[in-house]
């Protein structure tokens, strides 16, 4: 087990915000996504896991419980933490990577080949001689990831890595992560937070949903459907039809919630997605967007 914690508790007396997570386990090769609305404790939780923030609870890194005499310098050499704001690099990108490699004890003769392997893996070979200011935000994140991977960390903690990335770069970054974990030379676990639910759920083995600092859900996304008695669909119709749709749902006794132009509808598990869409089409609704969020943490946002 790379990281495990039980009864994580953190309270900020002034804001009265309280984070409470009963259990987290990160095993080798696992990706865990942390989601929740802004200000619900995602960054706090990641900071605790990365060893930046002290909290109550029983934490254990790499099989060793954390105590008063724990050597955090040693623990942190095995943790790679990429915060929301990545500090600027000075000098050329390759110089920084070489410095990290040398500090991590990669022999000088092997350094070039080792770095080229990581850079090729992340598709960064063409940019290695550039400077920090000459690359985009997405590349900065990937270079930061490359730097973190040099020391082959056992635990990768990423706070909102997808923020500020376009959709293609997001997907590329997540596929990089998946590839890293498939590579047997990295015995790494990843925990990351994001607002990009669909993307993060696609790659994560487990999800943690935080609401007001409390862990509302923790487990595989598929468990969301089995844990709940109803299916949840998210739909968007033409704006002028929204009121008619709500009237329709009310008439049929269906539970619903709205977020902007989107309507989340709960239907009984005995029904199906196809039946529901067919019913709407029959009622002459023009469906602009539809998604089954029964197996997504998205359904938890409106509860």
């Amino acid at each position, binding site marked *: 087990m790379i990281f495990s914690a039980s009864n994580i508790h953190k309270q900020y007396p002034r804001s009265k915000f309280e984070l409470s997570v009963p259990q987290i386990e990160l095993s080798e090769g696992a990706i865990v996504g942390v989601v929740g609305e802004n200000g619900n404790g995602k960054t706090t939780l990641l900071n605790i896991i990365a060893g*930046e923030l002290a909290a109550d609870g029983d934490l254990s890194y790499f099989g060793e419980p954390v105590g008063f005499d724990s050597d955090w*310098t040693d623990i942190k050499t095995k943790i790679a933490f990429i915060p929301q704001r990545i500090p600027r690099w000075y000098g050329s990108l390759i110089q920084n990577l070489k*410095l990290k490699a040398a500090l991590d004890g990669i022999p000088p003769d092997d350094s070039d080949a080792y770095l080229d392997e990581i850079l090729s893996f992340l598709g960064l070979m063409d940019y290695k001689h550039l400077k920090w200011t000459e690359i985009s935000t997405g590349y900065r994140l990937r270079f930061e990831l490359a730097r973190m991977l040099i020391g082959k960390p056992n635990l990768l903690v990423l706070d909102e890595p997808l923020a500020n990335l376009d959709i293609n770069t997001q997907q590329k970054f997540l596929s990089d992560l998946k590839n890293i974990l498939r590579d047997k030379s990295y015995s790494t676990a990843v925990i990351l937070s994001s607002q990009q639910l669909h993307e993060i759920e696609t790659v994560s083995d487990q999800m943690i949903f935080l609401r007001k600092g409390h862990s509302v859900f923790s487990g595989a996304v598929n468990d969301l459907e089995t844990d709940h008695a109803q299916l949840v669909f998210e739909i968007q119709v033409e704006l002028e039809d929204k009121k008619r749709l709500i009237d329709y749902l009310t008439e049929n006794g269906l539970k619903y919630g709205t977020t902007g132009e989107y309507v989340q509808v709960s239907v009984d598990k005995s029904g199906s997605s196809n039946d529901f869409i067919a019913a709407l089409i029959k009622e002459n609704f023009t469906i602009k967007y539809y998604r089954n969020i029964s197996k997504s943490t998205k359904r938890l946002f409106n509860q």
Partner: protein
Amino acid sequence: MNLKSMFNKVDHRMLEKYPNLWVLGVPIYVPILVLLHVIIMSIGFIYPLNPLPDFFRYKDFFENISITMILPTILLVVIFVIRQVKFNSKRVHLSLPYRYQFLVFLYFFGLLFGITSLPLSGNLAAYVKTNLTLDKDRFDKEHDVMADGFTHFFLEKSYIDDPEDCRIAEKQGYYFDDYNDRIGYTRYELNETKDSLIVYRHFVDYRYGSDLDTISLPQAYKEIETFISIAQRYEGGVTETDPVRIVEQNLKSDRFYTKGEKRVRPAFDYLESYQRFDNNINFHNKLLYKNSFFFAAEWEFWRAYAFLALALSILLIILCSVNIAEFGWGMLVVALHPTVFGIVAALTVFIFRDVNGDQGPWIGIILLSIFTLNALFFAFNKRFKPALRRAFAIACHIYLPLVAGGFMMLVEEVLDCCYVDSTYIENCDCFYPFTQTQYELTLMGTFFFGSILVTYLFGRYYKRQYTDPQIK
């Protein structure tokens, strides 16, 4: 292979093999610094210090080199600090481990000492050279001969403030001062038998004492001639060369002068430029006796000068060890905490203004203890926010060596004893078992080694603060 590619190769190799040195800028700064020292030392060494005269111009020359080098030195220090903050600081290189922190501090100290000593290396090289060329024995010999002859070429006026006293004194040839001591102001006159001169011996430098002397007239003429022949080598050209006329005129000039005549010329002066002659002789003294001008060759100078590099390196290691915002807060505490302490101290002094003066050091010790304990309390009490604790820790890092020295001085005042080498032992009730020099050295040592020790200890504190999880 050109110079640039050669440098790149060395730089690259250093980066791969010695990353901890590379990140400190060793491959850039050490060669640059060595090169600059070599250049400036060469200037000092090449500059012609021989032949005589005009030595005082060298003083100007080396002073100008030092002054000219001040700006480049400041520039180098600033560039070095920026480089370290960019590449070596915790906040920009989160991946940079907190390793070898104390060695990094020693490197900062060494390099900053090298940079700040740049303006003085020319002076040092020139000193090394002087040992090869200057003839100390010859100067000593000529100095004494000139000092004898000088008697006849320059004399300041003697003053009696009250004009009436002056008139009486002139008439009598002496007067009684406020303590009823008989003061004879004769400084250049014939004796009673008119065959010898009573002269006042003095010279432009401290090495020659002043006293009355009696010499024969032929001896006086000889002294004058010798002075004329030698002094010109020391920019001591004269306006009158006839010994007989010189003596005659001098005898007329020797009288009492009133205060109103003070700003007029000296009693007599036959030098083309007293100032240049004075400069020249004194420069020789300084040159030959390592006094003042060649301060770069003096251990005492470097002992004090090292504090500049020490202070800079302490600030830099703190800057590289903590968050930049916290460094700012730390500096604020450094400024405000003693200010508050100063106000409290002033109020205390005001309240206890009627208390016996002997209590002053005790009050100082109590206040300084409170001040120090307060700062330590904030720095180490876990109930405070880490950022606040670190700000006070930064302040403590800077204060503690100074406070240690402050305590030493206050305790010395409380005991109020004499040093073992004191010259006024009749007033001493007790003696310290050390000399004043030993005390001053201990004080300096406390500042210096205290700073180094405190830097080591607080280095560990910062490491814990930034690696261990914090309560934020």
